[in-house]
């Protein structure tokens, strides 16, 4: 077992502050403290080699959970073991077996080329120079940043920097990698490149990877298992396919026609798939049960002037959106 978490909780004490000078003075003298339960009785087991997506809205507790898994912060209660170690004991061997990539923070030195930071990491992780060098060459080639290694980090684009951040985290070949929004703020192409790299890397090294991301394309493409966290509690844990069909086994298909169609003429046909028509009735979104997908598509192809159609690319996104709007759906 790579990761074992049992009834893990984390409570933070925060305080409320009213706006303005009066509010500031009041809170300076008398603070209205309250306990915020960021993670609540969270239990999770992850096997070696799994690629798990940790999903949830902002403030759900994903990052707090990751920081507890890496030993950065101490849990309020519960137990946690990562590759056989208790993270907060912060044993040297434990820290050599894990890596954390945070999309919004950097471990590279800002005013020197990334190569200097990598050299420092070589010493931190006591890597033999020859193997370090060959690994550096291999990773920089895979991520296509060979020509960026000797440029000051502050002069690089966000995408280039993120690739180098990922490299920095992989140099010591960790057993478990925690990726906290690694593609945040990147353009579509950079996101795709990083996803492609992570997919190949995980396949080759059988590394356990836990990913949080607000880009559902990351999750859809990379993760075989999804863990949903809502209000600090685990709300779902299972294969991505099961998550996608959480709101029913249906496909969302978009159809475009060369001319307006008369929906009333085929009222019974379209109406059974919860249609959403464009104003001129030349486009429609349908929610078709998986079992009816083939027959419905054939009928539309034969009976209507179809020019284009496509299936929804990110069913995970739709499910997430529905769950964020109505969290109760999951227990209904």
């Amino acid at each position, binding site marked *: 077992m790579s990761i074992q978490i049992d009834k893990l909780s984390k409570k*933070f004490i925060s305080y409320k502050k009213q706006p303005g000078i009066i509010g500031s003075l009041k809170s300076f003298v008398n603070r209205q403290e309250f306990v915020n339960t960021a993670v609540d009785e969270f239990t999770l087991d992850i096997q070696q080699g799994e690629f798990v997506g940790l999903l949830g809205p902002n403030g759900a507790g994903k*990052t707090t959970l990751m*920081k507890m898994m*890496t*030993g*950065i*912060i*101490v849990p309020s209660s519960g137990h946690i073991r990562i590759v056989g170690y208790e993270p907060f004991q*912060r044993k*040297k*061997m434990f*820290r*050599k077996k*894990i*890596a*954390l990539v*945070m*999309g*919004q*923070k*950097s*471990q590279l*030195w800002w*005013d*020197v*080329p990334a190569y*200097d*930071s990598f*050299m*420092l990491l*070589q*010493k*931190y*992780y*006591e890597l033999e120079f020859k193997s370090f060098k060959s690994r550096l060459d291999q990773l920089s080639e895979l991520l296509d940043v060979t020509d960026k290694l000797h440029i*000051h980090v502050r002069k690089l684009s966000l995408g280039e920097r993120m690739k180098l951040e990922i490299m920095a985290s992989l140099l010591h070949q960790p057993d478990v990698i925690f990726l*906290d*929004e690694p593609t945040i703020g990147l353009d579509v192409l950079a996101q795709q490149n990083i996803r492609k790299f992570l997919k190949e890397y995980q396949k080759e090294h059988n590394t356990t990877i836990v990913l949080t991301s607000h880009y559902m394309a990351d999750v859809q493409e990379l993760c075989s298992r999804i863990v949903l966290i809502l209000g600090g509690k685990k709300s779902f844990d299972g294969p991505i396919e099961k998550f996608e069909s959480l709101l029913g086994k249906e496909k969302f298909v978009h159809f475009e026609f060369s001319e307006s169609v008369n929906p009333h003429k085929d009222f019974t046909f379209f109406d059974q798939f919860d249609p959403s028509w464009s104003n001129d009735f030349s486009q429609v979104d349908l929610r078709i049960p998986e079992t009816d997908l083939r027959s419905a598509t054939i009928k539309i192809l034969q009976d209507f002037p179809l020019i284009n159609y496509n299936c929804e690319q990110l069913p995970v996104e739709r499910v997430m959106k529905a769950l964020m709007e109505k969290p109760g759906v999951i227990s209904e």
Partner: protein
Amino acid sequence: MKHYLQVYFECVRTCFSEVTSFRVHFVLCMVMDIVFYATSFASAIFIFDHVEVIGEWNKNQFLFFVAFMLAIDQIHMTFVSENFWRFSEDVRTGHLDYTLLKPLGAVFTCFFRRMRPSTLFNFIFVWGALIHFGILNNLSVISWFLLPFAILVSLYLLVMVEILLVISSFWIVEGYGINFLRMQFQQLSRWPDFIYKFYLRKVFTLVVPILVVGSAPVKFLFDQNKIGIFALLFLFAVLYTFLVKVFWKFGLKHYSSASS
């Protein structure tokens, strides 16, 4: 130990790489510190233009003390100072997260990873002054032999007191105030203990031992019979190492990082 040294030398190398990117800043830092050293000596000389002795010391003894404290300051500025400012900022912004993940003692990675190479070569100035005033004070052979050692132990105690202070950043989060307090303590230690009134002297000798940092070793270097006060330096060095260990663990438990 080998691991720590390897990392440290690599940190030094990286800091050199970093600081040489900004040439004017490099030179300014160097000049700024030399000006500070010069004004420290000038202030003491100015006072002795008007008085014969201060407390129990004459002009040459006092200037040796000033040089001793500046030698500590020079090493402090070069190898440690930068880290205190970074630490408070890292606690507030959550950048400490990555530092805590490094497979080395966290106190080391927090307080000894950054250096300021620009002030490294100023050692010629302060050590020149220290040797000059040492000769004027007819230091004994044993005092010359103990001098570098005394400077290192004094520096160690000063750094431990400062680390203990800035650990409070884990609770108070915004560390500017603490860093200024730390600097005020440094300022207090740059004067010999006998200029302070009784209670103030007791507090800054026995509670927050910043007056031990300079006064204890210099008194011992002048007079080897005062071994008791020199022993106090070691005693506090050990005590504060223990306190740093205990409070560091408490601090880490309290660290809540910053939101992503």
